[in-house]
């Protein structure tokens, strides 16, 4: 019997190699077939119990409920993104795109299925490399810089991953370098160092504060399909998967760490969303949101509360769904209009109604509007947070309450920035230059609308479908109790009530309407093209507010970007040292004496 799990890696990898030798059309077909096959494979895995996989290559690949949960969504998302990419990927990059795509899926699957630390390290690193390759496919002038930045941050974090995993292997030799059931106690410098090494790796991958800076740049400069595939979906899944592993099976986490995680989550939410608000580029805006939503997952997974943990995991998949929707709709718009700058767009709702609907649902979902899926997961996180708060001492209560308020307010800010996003692209007055725009092609619509549909379904049927089928098994497997919140917030009830009220309104409207069409009323002036407000300037007031103004200015000068700051320091040091090398012998001898003195002092101090 062949190990099903190995197929998850072997099949796409093979396709990717085969693709090297065929024309683009066949590449597309083969990739599509492999994707369908993997989905089928997922179903096969679902039918079997986890115990079935324990006998095969236990030390290399295996799967548990958490792994399966991550796996199925990575397959589903990559499948839908593939449908989107079948038509419309830039001609120049098409050939490389369909080689990289299955490769990425393969490596990502490998990282999810890996049970041995070394295997995880290898595949983790390989996904970083495909990320770099995707970044190189970009067609803007900043592409090389962005690709380098991405590679250094993600690749650098791999070093921490290796360090962390090796430390764990060293601290707990009995685990034989596996990732499951280690349950290391978080005490001692080494264990804590290892924990933070892994945390850095997972944050860098998922885009958590303060290692998020590569995400917006990547989203801006790389092809939009890859932005939807990697930072929005697969990398999130991987990063949060690792975090969830850390807090459930790798470590026994102490409350202080939970506090740190919650704080980091809240900070991620608020900083990224504040940056997102003022962006003028659609992709960068979405990129910052891809970061800010990670905050909720970190809060949820890292809060140590079971309800919030469920919420965090649920938010992870919700995020991949609606963020992909938003990226893909933006992709459709960009391909039709030829620009990603929000200033140049407007009024496309009439020209691309279906794309607008998908984008609207995505936007409402990400802002947490009930009864969509985004609200359900946020609601779980908040509820869990309240339970955590209720059980803490008073000082910590205040601290956590502030974090909670930041998170709740973050979703209002998310709503605000998406209203700007929607207004800038789809609403308002349409410039003349966009009159030729037509609706996106069928494959793109299928992709975006099906994602939007999943948003609604997961929102309405959150309890029976994703929670019961996918997330609660994770809890039972980890030996945690299923939280008691059945029969509480019922999205179906909200939906039916709202639907009936809306229907009543519609009936009244249709009974009384007498419609006449007219042009805009502008105090008697003709409705001309120049009279338009683009949504991008909505938040000028907030940008101009002190002290936010200086913070924004610093942020734009990249003061908060660890990569840029480090590179500046590094270049500065290099410059300093190179300027010291004048070729003067006296100078060198002086250096030698100086260095000798320093060593002496250190030696004396140590003794």
């Amino acid at each position, binding site marked *: 019997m062949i190990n099903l799990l190995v197929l998850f890696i072997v099949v796409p990898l093979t396709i990717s190699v085969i693709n090297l030798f065929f024309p683009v059309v066949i590449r597309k077909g083969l990739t599509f077939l492999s994707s369908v096959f993997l989905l089928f494979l997922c179903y096969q895995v679902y039918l079997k119990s986890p115990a079935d996989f324990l006998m095969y290559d236990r030390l290399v690949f295996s799967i548990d409920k958490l792994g399966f949960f991550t796996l199925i969504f990575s397959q589903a998302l990559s499948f839908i993104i593939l449908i989107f990419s079948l038509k419309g990927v830039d001609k120049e990059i098409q050939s490389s795109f369909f080689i990289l795509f299955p490769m990425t899926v393969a490596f990502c699957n490998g990282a999810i299925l890996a049970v041995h630390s070394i295997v995880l390290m290898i595949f983790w690193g390989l996904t970083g490399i495909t990320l770099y390759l995707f970044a190189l496919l970009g067609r803007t002038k900043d592409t090389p810089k962005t690709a380098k930045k991405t590679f250094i941050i993600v690749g650098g974090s791999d070093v921490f991953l290796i360090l962390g995993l090796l430390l764990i292997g060293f601290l707990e030799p009995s685990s034989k370098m596996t990732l499951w059931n280690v349950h290391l106690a978080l005490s001692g410098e080494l264990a804590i160092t290892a924990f933070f090494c892994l945390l850095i790796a997972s944050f860098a991958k998922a885009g958590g504060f303060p290692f998020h800076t590569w995400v917006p740049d990547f989203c801006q400069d790389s092809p939009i399909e890859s932005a939807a595939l990697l930072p929005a979906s697969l990398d999130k899944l991987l990063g949060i998967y690792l975090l969830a592993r850390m807090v459930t099976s790798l470590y026994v986490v102490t409350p202080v760490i939970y506090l740190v995680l919650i704080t980091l989550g809240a900070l991620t939410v608020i900083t990224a969303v504040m940056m997102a608000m003022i962006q003028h580029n659609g992709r960068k805006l979405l990129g910052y949101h891809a970061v800010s939503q990670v905050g909720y997952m970190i809060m949820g997974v890292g809060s140590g509360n079971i309800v919030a943990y469920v919420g965090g995991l649920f938010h992870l998949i919700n995020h991949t769904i609606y963020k992909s929707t938003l990226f893909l709709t933006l992709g459709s718009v960009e391909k039709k209009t030829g620009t990603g700058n929000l200033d140049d767009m407007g009024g496309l709702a009439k020209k691309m109604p279906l794309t607008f609907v998908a984008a609207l649902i995505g936007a409402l979902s990400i802002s947490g509007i009930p009864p969509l899926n985004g609200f359900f997961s946020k609601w779980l996180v908040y509820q869990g947070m309240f339970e955590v708060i209720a059980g803490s001492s008073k000082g910590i209560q205040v601290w956590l309450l502030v974090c909670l308020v930041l998170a709740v307010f973050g979703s209002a800010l998310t709503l605000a920035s998406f209203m700007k996003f929607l207004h800038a692209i789809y609403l308002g007055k349409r410039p003349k230059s966009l009159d030729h725009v037509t609706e996106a092609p069928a494959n793109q619509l299928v992709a975006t609308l099906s994602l939007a549909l999943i948003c609604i379904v997961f929102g309405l049927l959150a309890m029976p479908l994703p929670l019961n089928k996918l997330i609660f098994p994770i809890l039972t497997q980890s030996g945690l109790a299923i939280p008691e919140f059945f029969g509480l917030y019922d999205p179906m009830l909200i939906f039916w009530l709202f639907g009936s009220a809306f229907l009543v309104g519609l009936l009244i409207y249709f009974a009384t309407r007498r419609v*006449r069409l*007219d042009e805009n*009323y502008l105090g*008697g*002036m003709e409705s001309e093209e120049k009279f338009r407000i683009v949504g991008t300037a909505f938040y000028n007031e907030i940008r101009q507010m002190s002290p936010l103004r200086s913070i924004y200015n610093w942020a734009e000068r990249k003061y908060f970007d660890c990569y840029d700051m480090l590179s500046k320091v590094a270049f500065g040091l290099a410059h300093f040292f190179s300027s010291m090398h004048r070729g003067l012998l006296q100078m060198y001898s002086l250096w030698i004496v100086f260095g000798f003195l320093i060593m002496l002092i250190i030696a004396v101090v140590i003794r």
Partner: protein
Amino acid sequence: MGWYKRRLAKSLWVFHVSGSPCNNCDIEILDLLTPKYDLERFGIKLVGSIRHADVLLVTGVFNQKVAPKIRKIYEQAPKPIFVVGVGTCMSGACCFRDSYNIVEDRQAVIPVDLYIPGCPPKPEAMIAAVAKLLGVLNARN
């Protein structure tokens, strides 16, 4: 429809259009809303957008530049809409009849339902006219 007309007569939202007046009628119209005359008693309210209006109060002689705009405003108003011409200028062009820049046939620009003469009309006259307009609306039953 009789019931509806009665509702309409009790809730007239007024939009004020100024077509080259001397400003006095406009000020007297605003005066109607203020404590002494308080047209809100009759459910009359001044609105800012033509889309909300039921009555257009038009003042002035209509110079040639503003006339097309007034026509446009009238067309943009949701029907049923009533036009009240306030002041002597509306009915007889007052002392501006000889100017090179006014429209002779104001009725062609905007069909007026009711004239209120006077330079400016006294607020009492305007209230009387509004009451008449209500009567007209009621009479349409």
